[in-house]
């Protein structure tokens, strides 16, 4: 019991931080009042000291290597620290406490769900549960197959299954394993007597249909095997399970393998695994200086001079002996100097 209380306290602190960071202008007292009166959560927490914990890993910002000044461009924003400028960006809320559970379809067999239940809502629902039951409570997700449901307020005739969840989790992947069906998810507490107390109910989602439809509305053109061949399935199993596996495999093998975001999907992703290696190259830098207006050539080709008359040339130097006949002619054309460095690269 005590533990829960502590947790609750912490959560309240968190709400205060989030809501205030979302809504509260740090400077002005008058605005502060406005916010707190518009939100129940801040009322209580006004007095509580503010924890300066950084947000959870997922939303925390690591400075990308390519954008080194990102940190300075982001808000130095936490409760207790005044904003330097009122227009500094508001920090993204870590939680919303809007008592929602949302379901998303990942594929024909899996759904994803996330939720965000306020401590008040938790307390309200828990208060309906007898204190003897409380030590045995399980937090669960109840997944209803609502495909045949007419009245969305009455799930009593639906098939469902429960998934027990960790009380700290905020999202879950559920294997519903049923393509082409509609689902709705409730989150809540299950007592040892099997009584279910709902915290929130999700939107209704539908998993995609999987497999080639048996519903035919016209005279048939393609033989059935041909359909599977389009998907790259040549060895069609006999049972429907085998068929499904073959189809699934075909999709995984990736008829879609290339897809998505042209510049970011390395096509030739399979690179050779590097064994031990060692490579040595040599380069030669030749540099020098002359009169800035002089005419400098190397093997008859003009060499560009910097404004101060210096130059620098850089060559890849393979094995062999190389001569570099330089010739500098003075601006007045009456003087010339020739220098020819000779460089030899050998290996043993």
């Amino acid at each position, binding site marked *: 019991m005590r533990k829960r209380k502590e947790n609750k306290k912490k959560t309240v602190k968190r709400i205060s931080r989030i809501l205030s960071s979302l*809504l509260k202008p740090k400077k002005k007292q008058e605005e502060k009042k406005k916010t707190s009166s518009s939100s129940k959560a801040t009322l209580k927490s006004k007095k509580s000291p503010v924890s300066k914990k950084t947000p959870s890993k997922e939303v925390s910002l690591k400075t990308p*290597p390519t954008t080194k000044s990102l940190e300075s461009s982001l808000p130095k924003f936490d409760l207790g620290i005044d904003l330097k400028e009122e227009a500094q*960006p508001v920090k993204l809320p870590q939680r919303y406490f809007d008592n929602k559970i949302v379901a998303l379809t990942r594929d024909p067999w899996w759904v994803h769900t*996330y939720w965000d239940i306020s401590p008040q809502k938790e307390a309200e629902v828990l208060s309906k549960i007898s204190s003897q039951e409380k030590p045995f409570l399980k937090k669960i997700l109840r997944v209803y197959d609502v495909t045949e449901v007419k009245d969305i307020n009455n799930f009593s005739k639906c098939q469902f299954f429960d998934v027990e969840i960790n009380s700290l989790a905020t999202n879950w992947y559920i294997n519903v394993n049923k393509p082409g069906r509609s689902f709705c998810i409730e989150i809540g507490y299950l007592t040892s007597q099997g009584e279910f107390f709902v915290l929130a109910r999700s939107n209704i989602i539908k998993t995609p249909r999987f497999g080639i439809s048996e519903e035919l509305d016209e005279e048939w053109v393609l033989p059935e095997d041909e359909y599977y061949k389009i998907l790259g399935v040549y060895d069609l199993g006999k049972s429907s399970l085998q068929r499904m596996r073959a189809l699934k495999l075909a999709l995984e093998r990736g008829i879609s*393998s290339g897809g998505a*975001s*042209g510049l970011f999907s390395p096509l030739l992703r399979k690179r050779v695994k590097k064994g031990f290696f060692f490579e040595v190259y040599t380069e030669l830098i030749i540099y020098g200086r002359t009169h800035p207006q002089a005419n400098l050539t190397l093997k008859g080709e003009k060499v560009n001079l910097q404004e101060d008359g210096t130059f620098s040339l850089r060559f890849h130097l393979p094995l062999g002996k190389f001569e570099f006949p330089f010739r500098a002619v003075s601006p007045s054309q009456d003087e010339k100097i020739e220098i020819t460095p000779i460089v030899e690269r050998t290996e043993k």
Partner: protein
Amino acid sequence: MEKGYLCLILHAHLPFVREPQYEEFLEEHWLFEALVDTYIPLLTVLESLIKEGVGFSLTLNISPTLSAMLEDDFLITRFKKYLDKMIELSEKEIERTKFLPQFNRLAHFYYYRFTRAKKLFFEKWGANILKVFKDIQERGFLEIITCCATHGYLPLLNLQEEVIKAQIRVGVSSYRRVFDRNPSGIWLPECGYFEGLDRFLKEEGIKYFILETHGILFARPRPKFGVYSNYWTPHRVGIFGRDPETSKNVWSSIEGYPGDYNYREFYRDIGFDLDYDYLRPYIAPTGERIFTGIKYYRITGPTENKEIYDPQKALDKAAEHAGNFMFNREHQINYLNSVLGRKPIIVAPYDAELFGHWWFEGVDWLNFLIRKIHFDQKVFKMITPSQYLKVYPLTQKIEPAGSSWGWKGYSEVWLSGENDWIYPHLHRAGELMVKLAQKEFLGLEKRILNQMGRELLLAQSSDWPFIMKTGAFSSYAKKRVIEHLQNFYSLYYQLKRRHKNELFLRELEEKNNIFPDISYKVFSL
């Protein structure tokens, strides 16, 4: 008389990256590289085909974020700087490789490539390639289609109808502004479809869209012609399914053309091979080595010992592969025509950036292919989806199945442990936006709402979760989602204040300047 059709679709898209607060920004190179590698060579090919009287019908999607960047003066100026730098580097390379004749030849090759890109883009096309694409469309060779506003992956945004509609509407209006007509079709981001989406598309005037193969094959009732015909959805939008055979030819790293040993090796780049000090001015501003685009080796084989690239040999190979592709289509179409009792359509969509960027010779391949189809055979013709819709206006009505062209065919790429944290934020922001859009705002408040709409749309790009999933650049992707949502809430906070900070608003309007004409009302029904 032809026995069937090939419908080539190129999907050109990049996320909106514009970071004027930095002197140089690595991720802006995505656009510059795609321009040099893909868009400029592609346009060059299309112009040469027209000039030489080669008939063709190509479908091209230019996503609204890409077209916004192509219109942006600031990014265009940066592109020029980028090209100048690359020209400078290739000049240095010409000098450096003086004693390596084969490499020296390639260094000249790159020098020519960069200088020509600059000349074409800035002199010939007046730094406005959208206009050139538009002209080609108006001359009837090209069908340009649109995409969702910021390439939002719709199946995972489908909590409010209004959010889905906004993605579609802004995609349509942005197209109309650039191309002066209504788009006939839409490229659904990642081919992401969920049951019922066709109604929203219909309401925005979309005539057709493309689905991944199993989106059509798993439709109900069973589609009579496989993926080789158009169909109608329940709300009577035209649909087409992707042909897996043609996609495998090009996409597969094992069986596909791009893996040929004569083609250029993407991963051996001087950016990782040469001396650090020499490269320093041309790599990331933070000093990381990056791909410069100058690459001297060919794939060679499953070995680390790469051999030098020979552009002529690679070009010959591209011609051979184009011939092979055409030959296979002739057979496929002959066969399908005999069993289907109608002229089949082979729908072959690809990411445009595959050609030229990943598959260096891809644009040449395309060039050869189009010419060969025109001159060397009579079995099939090229066609666009709207032309095919006119060939078979009477066709079966089916309800397509939810699907995408991502890995495993559904939403897992964009919804997994690496990126699922974004959805609670995106959905709440969407909810708030939809609520606000029902009210009327004027003046400054209206501008705040419009900018909130831009920030929300930018946060919804499917590129961010995709990049988070694939690893490279993931911190930038995270930064972008968070930043846009923070901007969104900061604006909301301004909205509620009596004294609004106009400067703050203006800064955001100037920085994230996509969709200049957007009205926040697109988020209402």
